[in-house]
């Protein structure tokens, strides 16, 4: 029998770290020694506790969830919500990913943020983020999960605008928060409906009872899941709410790696997986999730091909990869979705950290050379950096091949699983879209690597070149660890079709969690096909996709390396389709014209016309009216005797007249 070991400690450690560093941000602002140790250690220790729990759970072989009740949170009327933590196989996977990747990124941040005046504050926010993320994945009820859900959003807001004196950065933070709130509205409404139907918001009350209360294809199941998916669109940056994520790159690069690539943005995928049985009951919602996912995967990939900012490429790449995850959970391949979530956490974190090392190096070189202005993120200002940054260069290639889906890197197994499942589970069109997007992925990644690390010519500038440096140790170690994980991370799940030992560690581990959902789908949807939409088995298509991916990588790489680029300042503006893609299909401009400006006009109208004009006009009009009547009355009291007598006579006549008739 498995009992969670020190469950509260998993969350308490990062929280304690956040508090200590938060205090440090005020009391010992200049002294970064405490934060340097406390920040990573708090998360690392949490990782250790999670790992111990993982092995204990594994040893016990239990498939049930263990719920730890800490205290009663909200109890009113028929609603009872506890601060209850749920340790089951799914939350265990998420905890391992979150604390593991977080620990690496915390270590990296020691190097990246060295010397920043906000060092302590940074680690306070980062620790706090890990705390909320753990609340999100361990919560045993919807409202508690919502605490984590909005909590990570808050940390994201604080960290995007970490360098708050830059107005563009604090704008980006605000945008992220507001767009996410649109999603959170969906989460709220979903909870209202769930409480209305189930009378509870605990997972243990709702999910097992779902098939009893909701029919297959039930309109309420559809509404619940669509509102939940609205929340996912916000948090996990799917069309049409993805617009905040590219701007979120304003935050320090470790933040982009941790929050906006590896963990927080995957919360939506986790939410769908957690409520898989509800989605299984709502085929319409499933189709919506899968379609939006595939659409986002392709759409974001097209934009990524024409960005010059290395972090923007990776941001759109993240949106695109999240699309794959939603495609997976949308078609009902929940394990595949979580699998891709995991491998993506490795290679995308690595790509951001590598990009951070590049930016760090270029920035310092420029600083040393006395150069100001210029964008260290712009890949046209990089070039041939492999000579100075070998560790970054090699590890990033590992991640590039992983994300491109080249055998035997991690991404090959997870992405192939997603694409294959979408094909055999009845979504042929989305299968095709996902394949095309996969080849675009290989293309934009090869372009990124070629521009940044290759080309035989460095574009940072004469004086700066001598100051370029490789990643310092604190930054290099996480790169190497993640580089290895980008290679081997996929080997826990090797399909039977490949001529390799069949491994299904993850599927075996997660199957009990998704069993109810699979059961519903099997009852109503029928069995999965055994061949892809165009014929051919899993092996054939695995082969095709890895060969094509590799071919695209080589083709684009050679094409880019052969071309001569000039530094950003001297480069011409893109034209034609390139410009449209570079401008991100003009979606931000569209939103501004269609939504932001009309709303602002409406709000101003409410204030000036309705409030000041209509309502206050009436009120003040009444007051003036009363004053006018009073004025007339006061004129009658003139003090002249003659007038009084006259009035008196008129009055008498009127009264007499009324009496007489």
């Amino acid at each position, binding site marked *: 029998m498995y009992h969670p070991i020190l469950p509260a400690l998993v969350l308490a450690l990062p929280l304690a770290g956040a508090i200590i560093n938060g205090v440090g941000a005020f009391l010992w602002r200049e002294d970064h020694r405490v934060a340097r140790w406390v920040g990573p250690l708090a998360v690392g220790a949490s990782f250790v506790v999670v790992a111990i729990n993982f092995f204990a759970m594994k040893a016990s072989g239990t498939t049930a969830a263990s719920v730890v009740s800490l205290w009663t949170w909200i109890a009113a009327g028929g*609603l009872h919500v506890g601060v209850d933590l749920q340790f089951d196989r799914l939350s265990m996977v998420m905890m391992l990913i979150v604390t593991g990747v977080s620990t690496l990124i915390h270590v990296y941040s020691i190097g990246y943020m060295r010397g920043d005046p906000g060092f302590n504050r940074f680690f306070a926010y980062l620790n706090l983020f890990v705390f909320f993320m753990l609340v999100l994945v361990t919560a045993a009820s919807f409202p508690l999960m919502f605490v984590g859900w909005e909590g990570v959003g808050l940390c994201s807001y604080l960290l995007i605008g970490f360098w708050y004196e830059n107005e563009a950065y604090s704008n980006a933070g605000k945008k992220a928060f507001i767009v996410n709130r649109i999603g959170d509205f969906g989460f709220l409404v979903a909870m*209202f409906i769930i409480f209305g139907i189930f009378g509870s918001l605990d997972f243990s009350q709702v999910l097992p009872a779902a098939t009893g209360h909701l029919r297959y294809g039930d309109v309420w199941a559809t509404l619940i899941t669509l509102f939940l998916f609205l929340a996912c669109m916000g948090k996990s940056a799917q069309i049409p709410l993805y617009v905040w994520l590219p701007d979120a790159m304003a935050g320090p690069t470790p933040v982009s790696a941790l929050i906006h690539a590896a963990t927080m943005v995957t919360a939506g995928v986790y939410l769908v997986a957690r409520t898989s049985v509800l989605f299984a009951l709502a085929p319409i919602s499933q189709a919506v999730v899968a379609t939006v996912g595939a659409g986002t995967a392709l759409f974001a990939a097209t934009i990524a091909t024409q960005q010059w900012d290395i972090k923007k490429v990776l941001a759109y790449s993240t949106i695109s990869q999240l699309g794959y995850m939603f495609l997976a959970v949308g078609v009902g391949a929940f394990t595949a979705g979580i699998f891709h979530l995991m491998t993506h956490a490795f290679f995308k974190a690595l790509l951001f950290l590598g990009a951070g090392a590049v930016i760090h190096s270029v920035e310092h070189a420029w600083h040393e050379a006395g150069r100001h202005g210029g964008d260290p993120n712009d890949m046209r200002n990089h070039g041939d950096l492999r000579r100075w940054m070998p560790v970054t260069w090699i590890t990033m290639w590992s991640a590039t091949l992983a994300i491109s889906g080249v055998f035997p890197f991690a991404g090959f197994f997870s992405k192939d699983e997603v694409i294959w499942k979408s094909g055999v589970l009845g979504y042929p069109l989305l299968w095709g879209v996902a394949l095309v997007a996969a080849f675009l992925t290989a293309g934009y990644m090869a372009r990124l690597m070629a521009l940044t690390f290759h080309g035989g010519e460095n574009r940072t500038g004469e004086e700066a070149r001598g100051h370029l440096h490789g990643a310092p140790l604190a930054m290099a170690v996480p790169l190497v660890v993640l580089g290895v994980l980008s290679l081997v991370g996929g080997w826990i799940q090797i399909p039977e079709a490949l001529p390799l030992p069949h491994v299904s560690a993850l599927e075996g581990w997660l199957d009990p969690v998704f069993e109810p959902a699979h059961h519903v789908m099997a009852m109503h949807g029928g069995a999965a096909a055994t061949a892809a939409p165009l014929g051919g088995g899993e092996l054939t298509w695995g082969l095709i996709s890895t060969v094509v991916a590799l071919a695209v990588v080589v083709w684009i790489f050679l094409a880019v390396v052969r071309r001569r680029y000039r530094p950003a300042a001297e480069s011409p503006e893109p034209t034609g389709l390139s410009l449209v893609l570079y401008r991100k299909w003009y979606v931000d401009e569209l939103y501004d014209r269609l939504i932001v400006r009309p709303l602002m006009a409406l709000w101003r109208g409410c204030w000036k016309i309705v409030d000041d004009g209509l309502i206050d006009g009436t009120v003040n009009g009444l007051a003036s009216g009363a004053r006018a009547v009073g004025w007339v009355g006061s004129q009658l009291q003139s003090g002249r005797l003659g007038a009084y007598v006259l009035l008196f006579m008129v009055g008498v006549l009127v009264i007499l007249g009324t009496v007489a008739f």
Partner: protein
Amino acid sequence: MYHSHWILTLLLAIPLAGAFACLGVSGERAGRVALWTTVLEAALALPLFWTFRIGAGSFQNTVSVPWIGAWGIGYRVGIDGISLLMVLLTVVIMPLAVAGSFRYIERHRPAYYASMLVLTTGMLGVFVALDMFLFYVFWELMLVPMYFIIGIWGGERRLYSAIKFFLYTTVGSLLMLVAIAGLVYLHWRSSGTVTFAYAELLNTPISRPVQFWLFAAFALAFAIKVPMFPLHTWLPDAHTEAPTAGSVVLAGILLKMGTYGFLRFGIPLFPRAATSHAVVGLFVTLAVIGILYAAWVAAVQPDAKKLVAYTSVAHLGFVMLGVFGFTAEGLQGGILQMVNHGISTGALFLLIGMLYERRHTRNIADFGGIAKVMPVFAVCLVVVALSSIGLPGTNGFVGEFLILVGTFRTHPLATVIAATGVIFAACYMLPMVQRVILNPLDRQENRELQDLGGRERAILVPLLALILLIGVYPKPFLDRLAPAVDRVLQRVDMLPSVPTARAERALPPGVRLGREAFTANLSGVVDAPPAPAPGPERGS
């Protein structure tokens, strides 16, 4: 002592005594007298939280002494869970408001602090009065000092604002006075005794049409006080022109008079009118309009104080939604949200006041980047702002969530529309926070700002602590509210014309669950005729 009956009387008397003492001393010493009076008041009142018997359905600490015997008027006071929280909110806010005035108020200090103390008695009286006449006396008593506080110590347009505030409120309360008289008359006709006792008047048999008229008079008075759209326009002016402490008291406590009035008098006295489809529909609609409309208008305000004033309208809209949703969750959430709003909006006004004392402007555009020079202030502002927009983990979320999750069962569509308020809340609060504490620190005047001092931190700490405490552990507060809320619900439950979830409260737990019962609930609301009383077989 706390089970004895005179604690409430003591609480009413101390501020009055303090007010006289203030008038007797000069200048700054008046402030100190007022501070000590309110601190003593708080120290005396706070133990009530623990001595209050949880789960008891009746009023506690009651006193009933004849006052004007021939008219059946008595000094009758007592508290239930709702009063308890309102009384405690008042005694917590008042010392902070007084301490927050030390730097702001420079003229006629004794009169100012005496007004604040008289105001305290007036507000506490409204919350504890169980006699309609006494209630009305306190109701008017608090109006006068507030009028002077705005009119004498306010900003540039203080006279206009004060008169507007006074007239708006008086129009409502005069009609209420007529209705009280009518109610007493009806009671005399049916029972032969003249009395103003709340408990007696509850038993007055009133015909349905008359209920509507009397309820309308009460409702107008309370709706102005809440304030509900479109009767809210006195509020932005009063808030903006009042001195900091005036705004704090106005938002923190005075605005609760309206919703409290509905809960204590409007609904229980005239349940048939209050729960009729027309009235519920009207109030739910106005509440939802208030939530959205006020948030929109708030989002485009250049003046920080006016912005916060409009957010009050939105927040109180949530409270009204919870009240007129008539569910246990919604009502408890609504009352808790009254407390929450007092804490977070009070804190917001205090923070803006602290800025004003330094820069003599409330124009949002005049600030920017001051997190750099005022980090403690920045942290406080962010925490309070998050509480105001209902971030989970803060008090604001618990209240809003309960309101919405409860009301959804009786008014799903209205609740969903109201829930979009969480988006607009972010739209008004975050830009303000950004433009004040973030962005470049590009003005010379702002570079020299001093961070919060000891007195200012001491004022904010209790509020911040409450924000987090109620956010993580609201149970002690909700526990104290449950019986009072149940009594309100029982009061409206007696009526067959009230559809929806309340009827189900009678069912054994678990029976009301399920899709059929839920959708039946919805159709009961969506279709105009009252839903049939659900039998226990439904939803099984």
